[in-house]
């Protein structure tokens, strides 16, 4: 049985979305800036998509700027606001829950002379609004807090933090890549100034993202050039991808509640079954989390081994273990939550989508415990972490 349980990585493209895109990959190839009918068609398609995306997050269409990805939107927001407001202050606040596409631009800003505060979460991966409040200085111009973590599923109190920022005239950005299309997101209700999103997180194409920029918010472009996207993002538009993002947003809006109910049922069943296994810890917030997201740390074994054995059974999941990362470092998110690195080694994440079924969950609940058992038989710590320090010079004991 094939079970794709890695929806935080990406989602398949929906058939209806592909169909909507096809004409723009074929005969409707016009440049949206052209004045003849081919160009007008392309331009109208983009404006239609803009309205569809705006509809999903309750913004005005004019507040949506299309980008090539969620990562670009994050870069755009951080760098664009920091540069636009640098003469008012040079302090930026982000959290340790952020994606690389926030953390790395933040480090870049430090090189440009900005000061960045990295706020720690609690053990559930939750950012206390008070800890943001405490980090604010007279110099603070920008706060960026992820809406929900793809690694541990925790949903952050973005509305409260946006309020704190607003009272102090600080621009507030949220990375909504993991939430838009997965839970209801209303930018007016949240009160955010900017929000990033990515189409492939809700069954749209890769190569399409967007940044919501509240009307009146000044920002410096990331890509300078022509007048596309109101001069805020130059480059001939990726019309098929944008059309796909719009269509995916429209469909998602209609079916969001059904999807949430569906994936939550699958998630709850999986969590129930997995938590019966010894020495498995649930990571992230128990209730306040993405509905289709389950994350654990399985003690005494390593994540890549689990992924490979699961994959041999047709089950595809993710891990934040050191061995699975290119940098060979345990996920900074897990470490910042206070999970010791040897426990983070056993990180495993399942994320569900519309096409998953209860049969797949039951199948996984048959296979997964056996995989854990097999890997534990190979582990020198099968009976516990005793003696951990004798070999692992770099592993600190619990």
């Amino acid at each position, binding site marked *: 049985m094939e079970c794709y349980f890695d929806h935080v990585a990406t989602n398949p493209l929906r058939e209806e979305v592909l169909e909507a895109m096809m004409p723009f990959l074929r005969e409707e190839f016009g440049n949206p800036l052209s004045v003849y009918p081919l160009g007008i068609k392309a331009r109208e398609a983009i404006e239609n998509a803009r309205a569809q995306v705006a509809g999903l997050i309750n913004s005005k269409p004019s507040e949506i700027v299309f980008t090539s990805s969620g990562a670009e939107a994050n870069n755009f927001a951080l760098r664009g606001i920091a540069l636009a407001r640098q003469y008012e202050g040079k302090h930026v606040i982000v959290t340790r829950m952020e994606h690389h596409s926030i953390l790395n631009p933040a480090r870049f800003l430090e090189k440009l002379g900005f000061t960045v505060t990295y706020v720690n979460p609690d053990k559930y991966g939750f950012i206390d609004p008070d800890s943001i409040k405490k980090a604010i200085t007279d110099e603070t111009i920008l706060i960026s807090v992820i809406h929900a973590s793809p690694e541990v599923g925790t949903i952050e109190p973005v509305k409260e933090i946006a309020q704190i920022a607003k009272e102090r005239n600080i621009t507030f950005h949220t990375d909504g890549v993991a939430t838009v299309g997965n839970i209801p997101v209303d930018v007016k209700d949240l009160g955010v100034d900017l929000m990033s999103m990515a189409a492939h997180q809700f069954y749209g194409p890769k190569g399409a993202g967007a940044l919501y920029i509240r009307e009146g918010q000044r920002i410096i472009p990331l890509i300078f050039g022509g007048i596309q996207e109101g001069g805020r993002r130059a480059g001939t538009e990726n019309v098929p991808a944008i059309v796909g993002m719009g269509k995916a947003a429209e469909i998602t809006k209609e079916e969001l509640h059904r999807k949430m109910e569906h994936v939550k049922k699958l998630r709850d069943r999986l969590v129930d079954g997995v938590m019966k296994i010894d020495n498995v810890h649930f990571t992230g917030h128990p209730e306040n989390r993405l509905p289709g997201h389950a994350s654990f740390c399985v003690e*005494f*074994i*390593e994540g*890549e*081994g689990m992924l*490979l*054995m699961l994959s*041999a059974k047709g089950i595809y999941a993710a891990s934040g*273990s*050191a*061995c*699975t990362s*290119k940098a*060979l*470092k*345990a996920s900074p998110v897990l470490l910042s939550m206070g999970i010791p*690195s*040897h426990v983070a*080694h056993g990180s495993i994440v399942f994320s569900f989508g519309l096409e998953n079924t209860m049969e797949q969950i039951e199948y996984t609940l048959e296979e997964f415990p056996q995989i854990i058992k097999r890997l534990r*038989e*190979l*582990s*020198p*710590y*099968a009976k516990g972490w005793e003696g*951990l320090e*004798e*070999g*692992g*010079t*770099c*592993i600190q004991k619990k």
Partner: protein
Amino acid sequence: MYTKEVMDHFMNPRNVGEMPDADGIGVEGNPVCGDVMKLFIKVKDDRIVDAKFQTFGCGAAIAVSSMITEMVKGKTLDEALEISKEKVAEALGGLPPQKMHCSNLGADALRKAIEDYKSKKRQN
């Protein structure tokens, strides 16, 4: 990303488990990613007659452990000391570049197990 040999040794690891009457034990932690391998050897007339392992680590680390226990069996201690991390990786049909450090784990654990055997022997 892994070769057929790596996947085979990972999915069906040879010589797994503890050896209560081991003559030498080597434990090595991997400072790069934090993994640990424990290697047990049984020695007779300066020849390794049996080897077992326990590994807390990635697929490559498990495959390396399994392969090295196969490679040392029947070898004299001097021959076993010649087994380098490159040789283990080669026997596995190669390792991805970012996984080369995992083969260190095996070679170093083996060296420690042999040292452990020798020092125990000296004490007797």
